């Protein structure tokens, strides 16, 4: 009666197999061209199980997950909106699934047409001059973006620029990316109102500045009001402005990064364009650039010969200044097709609604949560598509932390918000409802939050022990790290 699920390996029995799936064994004679010295001595330890074993095992495992398809999932900075099932069907059409990445352009016109259109849509909604769909996730988009900044300075032989500036609220991928691109990172403080400390920025800027990476709205869940001054400061110093588009959902159709002065941007299609997160991935992180970075876009991209109406690949042979390929082929095609589907269904009016309704939802949720007794981190500010609560008071007075509240929410069948990010707000919960959740779904969440606050006051120990209703209770992370157990053995 335990709900501990065996490992697939524990179902294994020598000689068992799902043998409708494999071709008949070949004879040793058919393998004679492979030298014995290169042959494996023991068969690899994959499980030997039946087809039913596999189907049952993974079906049962799946039921141990929360997911948008089952729960409200207000994970800040992650934009957990509804993933249209129609997009999945379209991307899984046999014609798309069977296309080899290196099929000649003559046999790729349908696929290239989708990419070409998507590139144009993304240019338009971001206000950038060119877009490449190649990066495989947000972080790879960041990498491409910063590599382009570097290529830009390099091309001008402007080689004293060794630093990237990053507001302290930034996502961890920003500094990590800057380092991967060979830069040093200098953090810029954020003020009490959630905006960047402009004075500090001015002081940090200089001839060593390659660029600034930021998101707007920031991960503090507020719109950076001094964006123009920031842009001017960085540009005046000769640096470029990078936009981390993870928060694009907040402003889609309202204000465009290109119009704010950004030189380069990545978008997370697995956020703003509703492609699924798949329990960790895949995503897609297209990059958009202003005029001056066009020569450096990562390849390949889809091109169109207006005369013949033929699509083709733009690759390093036609764009030799490109920073090049970031993967063996051309990015996460299946994700791009899903985003294309989404963009086509939304169309121009739909894009504009995204920013509006995600912002409406976040401001509603914020106000209601304040009303039931929670503390906003930036009470004077509008929420963007997300906002931060701080539980510093509760932590101090009741010894109930943001993590405790997060865990207790699971018992109410609500996924927890993002916890402890951004790091600068103590005991924070970063909450993002998205535009696809109904008011009733938000009201259920509010009711749960209200109940938990009450529990925190009346029975804090219980809250600290939560969750009680999940497949496991709180896990021993220290043991996990100290006594590493990363692969299973009998």
């Amino acid at each position, binding site marked *: 009666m335990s709900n501990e699920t065996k490992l697939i390996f524990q179902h294994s029995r020598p000689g068992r197999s799902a043998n409708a799936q494999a071709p008949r064994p070949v004879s040793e004679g058919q393998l004679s061209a492979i030298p014995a010295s290169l042959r494996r001595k023991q068969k690899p330890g994959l499980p030997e199980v039946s087809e039913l074993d596999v189907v049952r095992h993974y079906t049962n495992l799946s039921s141990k997950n929360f997911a948008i398809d089952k729960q409200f999932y207000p994970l800040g900075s992650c934009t957990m909106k509804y993933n249209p099932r129609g997009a999945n069907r379209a991307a899984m059409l046999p014609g798309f699934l069977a296309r080899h990445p290196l099929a000649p352009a003559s046999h790729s016109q349908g696929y290239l047409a989708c990419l070409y259109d998507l590139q144009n849509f993304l240019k338009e909604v971001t206000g950038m001059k060119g877009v490449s769909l190649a990066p495989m996730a947000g972080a790879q988009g960041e990498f491409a973006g910063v590599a382009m900044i570097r290529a830009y300075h390099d091309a001008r032989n402007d080689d004293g620029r060794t630093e990237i500036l990053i507001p302290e609220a930034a996502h961890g991928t920003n500094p990590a990316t800057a380092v991967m691109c060979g830069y040093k990172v200098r953090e810029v403080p954020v003020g009490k109102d959630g905006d960047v400390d402009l004075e500090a920025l001015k002081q940090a800027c200089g001839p060593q500045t390659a660029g600034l990476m930021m998101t707007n709205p920031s991960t503090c869940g507020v719109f950076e009001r001094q964006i123009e001054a920031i842009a001017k400061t960085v540009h005046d110093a000769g640096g470029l402005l990078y936009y981390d588009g993870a928060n694009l959902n907040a402003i889609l159709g309202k204000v465009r990064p290109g119009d704010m002065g950004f030189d380069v941007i990545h978008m997370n299609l697995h956020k703003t364009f509703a492609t699924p997160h798949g329990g960790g*991935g895949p995503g897609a992180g297209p990059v958009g650039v202003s005029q001056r970075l066009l020569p450096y876009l990562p390849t390949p991209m889809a091109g169109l010969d207006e005369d013949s109406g033929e699509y083709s690949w733009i690759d390093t042979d036609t764009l030799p200044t490109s920073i090049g390929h970031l*993967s063996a082929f051309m990015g996460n095609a299946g994700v791009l097709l899903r985003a294309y589907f989404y963009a086509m269904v939304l169309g121009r009016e739909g894009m504009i609604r995204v920013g509006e309704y995600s912002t409406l939802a976040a401001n509603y949720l914020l106000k209601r949560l304040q009303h039931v007794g929670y503390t906003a981190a930036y009470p004077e500010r509008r929420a963007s598509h997300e906002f931060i609560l701080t539980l510093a008071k509760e932590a101090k007075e009741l010894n109930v932390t943001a993590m405790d509240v997060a865990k207790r929410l699971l018992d109410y069948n609500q996924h927890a918000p993002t916890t402890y990010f951004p790091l600068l707000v103590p005991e924070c919960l970063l909450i993002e409802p998205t535009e696809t959740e109904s008011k009733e779904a938000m009201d259920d969440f509010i009711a749960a939050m209200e109940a938990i606050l009450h529990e925190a006051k009346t029975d804090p120990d219980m809250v600290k022990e939560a969750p009680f209703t999940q497949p496991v209770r709180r896990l021993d992370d220290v043991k996990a790290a100290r006594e590493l157990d990363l692969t299973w053995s009998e």
Partner: protein
Amino acid sequence: MPYIPHTPDDVSAMLDAIGAERIEDLFDEIPAHLKAGSSLDALPEGRGEMEVTRLMAERAEQDRYALSFLGGGAYQHHIPAAVWEIATRGEFYTAYTPYQAEASQGTLQVIYEYQTLIARLTGMDVANASVYDGASGLAEAVLMALRANRKSKSNRVLVPEALNPRYRSACDAIVRNQDVALDTVPFCGQAGQTLTDSLSKYEGEDYAALVISQPNYFGSLEDVDALTNWAHANGMLVIAVVNPTSLALLTPPGEWGSEGADIVVGEGQPLGIPLSSGGPYFGFMACKQKHVRQMPGRIIGRTVDLEGKQGFTLTLQAREQHIRRSKATSNICTNQGLAMTAATIYMSLIGPDGLASVAGHCHANTQKLADKLTAIDGVERAFTAPTFHEVVLFLPQDADTVLARLAEKDILGGLGLAKDYGMKNAILVNATEVHTEGDLDLFVAAMKEVLA
């Protein structure tokens, strides 16, 4: 409003609660002149699921072809129906990264099983939860080797010319930003292999690692034992780049030479992932236990809960960007989780003997195809080395022209090697378990016609 549930009543109730009059008011912190830079005219009007599906179905149809023998890093294989029917269940498909472990035991256990499967397949100790793809995975492996090889002070790594050129260029595009240099080891023009002879000139030099590709881009099998031992003898780590299907038959990197490879990466696509124009695939990555703290990407550990019950959780997070920021092992965050989930299901379904049969058929079919094609006048094998499931053939004519004419017959007959290796008359051909005798014969007949 597609995908937005709010009714006018909902909107007023929400605005009331906020104390705003219009939605537009919520954007009052955005400087007015920045707003509405465009009315998005480049976008079409929104259409329903029906119309968009029809349009996309027509486009998907446009790209159909009869028969393909393209490989070069992505391979056609039978994918059991169960793989994607389960992987696209909402519980897997629409979950986020398992940050809330208690509510993500499904995904977490899948990853733990996946790590085990990859470790077993490659003969290594540990594996991570996937990187973007094989090529970018190689870049991660190179950077990891630089960190892991404490003995080496260099920023240089040796890379065989016979490695997939797309891997070489992507790897270079990534690592050159940190001033890492990839030096190219040429291959033997007769054998189509990387010979230890060609390495002798690097003896005594400080390189952090040697990359070994098994099979290499030409499908040739390398003498991995000799290469591995050479590298270790010269203070280098060994980064193995392998095809996962082949590992059912070939010596796993963990057993190469006397000590085994140190880091293993490869393209996971052959393990149940559709060709799908190049992605999403996933890169797998494994290493020896002692290097695990240098490995990028997510890693899941098994532990216990409050009540002592088995459970799974993200571990060694101090390597990752969300904790370690600029000191992280990599910037990777979102990975290829769903493809990895599919591969886990695939590996479980196919089993060890099944994967060996798949590999065996790939090899045997490619041999058969090569035999049939080389029976045509003027067509011959380019190299002497044994091959796995790809082979380079010389044609009596310009390869790109021949391939284009085959394509007109809706047969994708292989990849040309002119651009990457200057071999104008050579094609790289692959066959797998999906090809029937009839398929091979169709190809051969078409080739005869084209060459006639």
